């Protein structure tokens, strides 16, 4: 059914009342206010309130609920800068009807320090991103939230926070970012609780109907040796940005299986990569490569561990006309020792192809002074015939009030990457009031 439950509606109505009360009471920007003092070091408080509703567009036989997203989120952002130190807190209070709980998600709690002319320190809970891909991440092994990504939350929720220390070193010849995450932080992965997925053991798709509890995975033991280390060396050469990357840690998805305890776990992983980005043909071209070294399965013979992979990405983005942009990417995942993988796998028919070719396109049109944005992002896996479409419409009625309507549409065979999510296709709507 496509009608939200009574509870969703009451939640929505509650939010609408809440939003309108803020709208009525909030001070309007005045021409006479001291807007020229905004950089001064005072405590600032901002945030937003948002209501979101997402409904399945097709029925999923392994999920009992038709509502995929029904939540009221309240964001609080506090910032204070003192001399060269900047303190920031960004917390989300989220009343989540689907998960049936209220949670507090601290997205940022950090101090940024310009410690020396050559050193920046960023310590605490933070969002971290690097690399050249658009919604594709090769050398960015910082945690992602794929549940948020597929159910229609705002784009920023694709990135999940890490508790980390980031040191940035600068010199004329070379710059370096060193990120240490003492406790391994995995992706917020699809577990069956909200989004169903394919299991080769069944074989078939798993959701709340046929899973006693959501998929759990065992984290690496907390030890000095299991801390995550990410390094980026970068510089600019003329208009070209060059970077080299190194990561030592674990696969961010639970790709390993511990057969003794019969539980998923995270495989030891090193990643070595490089990227460049510059202007080309009136647009921006990027090239990135990464070698995923499965440290414990160098020869690809262990069926319980992922094989090593070579990943490559080439992208180009340009404007087709005023306010109309097109970005294209080609992405390759080349699974190493593929013969050994098939020879040892208990589910050879469901293993990925040796070469997985993915094309993406982002078409974006902004109009009405950018108060209306129409966007279509598409992932298409060539040869495996599965795809993921992300159409969206965003409308700003004012600087404070924004409305987003969109869909996540997946299609393909059950055992394919996007295909397994086909029955989770959905349509969503979000209303945000920023203050």
């Amino acid at each position, binding site marked *: 059914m496509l009608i939200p439950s009574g509870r969703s509606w009451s939640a929505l109505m509650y939010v609408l009342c809440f939003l309108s009360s803020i709208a009525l009471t909030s001070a309007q920007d005045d021409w006479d206010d001291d807007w020229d003092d905004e*950089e001064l070091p005072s405590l600032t408080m901002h945030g937003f309130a948002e209501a979101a509703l997402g409904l399945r567009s097709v029925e999923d036989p392994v999920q009992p609920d038709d509502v995929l997203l029904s939540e009221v989120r309240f964001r609080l952002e506090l910032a204070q800068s003192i001399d060269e130190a900047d303190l920031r807190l960004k917390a989300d209070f989220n009343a989540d009807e689907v998960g049936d709980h209220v949670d507090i998600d601290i997205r940022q709690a950090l101090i940024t320090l310009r410690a020396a002319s050559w050193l920046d320190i960023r310590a605490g809970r933070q969002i971290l991103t690097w690399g050249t891909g658009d919604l594709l991440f090769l050398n960015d092994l910082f945690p992602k939230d794929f549940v948020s990504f597929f159910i229609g939350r705002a784009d920023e929720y694709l990135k999940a926070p890490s508790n980390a220390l980031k040191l940035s070193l*600068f010199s004329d010849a070379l710059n370096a970012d060193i990120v240490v995450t003492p406790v391994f932080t995995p992706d917020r992965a699809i577990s069956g609780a909200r989004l169903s997925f394919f299991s080769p053991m069944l074989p078939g798709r798993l959701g709340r109907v046929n899973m006693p509890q959501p998929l759990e995975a065992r984290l690496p033991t907390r030890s000095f040796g299991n801390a995550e280390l990410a390094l980026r060396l970068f510089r600019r050469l003329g208009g070209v940005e060059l970077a080299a990357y190194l990561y030592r840690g674990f696969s961010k998805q639970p790709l390993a299986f511990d057969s003794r305890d019969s539980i998923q776990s995270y495989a030891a992983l090193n990643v070595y990569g490089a990227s460049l980005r510059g202007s080309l043909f009136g647009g921006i071209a990027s090239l990135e490569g990464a070698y995923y070294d499965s440290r414990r399965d160098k020869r690809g013979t262990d069926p319980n561990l992922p094989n090593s992979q070579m990943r490559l990405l080439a992208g180009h983005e340009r404007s087709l006309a005023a306010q109309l*942009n097109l970005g294209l990417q080609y992405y390759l995942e080349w699974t190493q020792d593929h013969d050994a993988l098939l020879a040892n796998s208990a589910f050879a028919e469901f293993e990925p192809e040796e070469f997985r070719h993915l094309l993406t396109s982002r078409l974006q049109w902004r109009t009405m002074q950018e108060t209306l944005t129409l966007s279509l992002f598409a992932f298409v896996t060539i040869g495996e015939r599965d795809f993921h479409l992300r159409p969206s419409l965003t409308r700003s009625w004012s600087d404070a009030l924004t409305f987003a309507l969109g869909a996540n549409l997946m299609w393909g065979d059950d055992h394919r990457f996007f295909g397994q999510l086909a029955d989770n296709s959905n349509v969503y709507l979000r209303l945000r009031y920023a203050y």
Partner: protein
Amino acid sequence: MLRIVSILFFLICSLGVDRIEGSAPKGGEADAIVGKANLAAYYAGTDGRARVRMTITDAQGRERVRQFTILRRDINDGGDQEYLLHFSRPADLRGTVFLVNKHVARDDDRWLYLPGLDLVKRIAAGDKRTSFVGSDFFYEDVSGRGVEEDHHELIETSSEYYVVKNTPIDPGTVEFSSWTAWIDKQSYLPRKMEYLDNTGKVYRRIEALEVRNVGAYPTVSKMKVSDLRSGTYTVSEFRKIEYDLNFPADVFSERSLRNPPRQWLRGR
């Protein structure tokens, strides 16, 4: 001459000023005026800072606000420049940083830092004549239109203004067929610019509404861009304008995208 501000804002640049070392044909009176205006106005001083408020008004009269601090530094007089913009309003742009390396000899390099995703995004050169953060200003208005991209022709000299017509050398890269600038004979500040479409009709206008002396420099402190087709307009106001602050070069590096240079943004 105006500095920063004007600088920043197209005016001048767009002004169609010819650079001394520029490749455009030399010798014409228009080129000389445009060159003089460029040197006097656009590149005066070595660097500068201003607080900027853009008020965007749509066809129904509804207003939105964009507010930022802008830092500018000249690499060499009449040549390359660097800009850093740090947004404080509205909510969805707060903390966004825009960095421009403006080049005379090739396309500008431009980056945008989106704090929500900790993402440094690079912006294509082809987006030059598209809206700057939803306003009626174009990106090119902010970081400047290369003077060598147009032919300049002096079409009128009044008691107050030199009127210069500018025709694009490569019409395929712009939406106008020509544009006309009214340059103040005293200060060499452009006071008005009008953009014409293929039928010769004015569809876009930029006006300097207020000029103030900042130290020794006459500076445009309020300007308006009108889109005459859609009926929308944007007014930019500049406050706390200062020049010759001696910014170090690394203020305009990737470092400043992720960690804005508070000391220099704030001022003393």
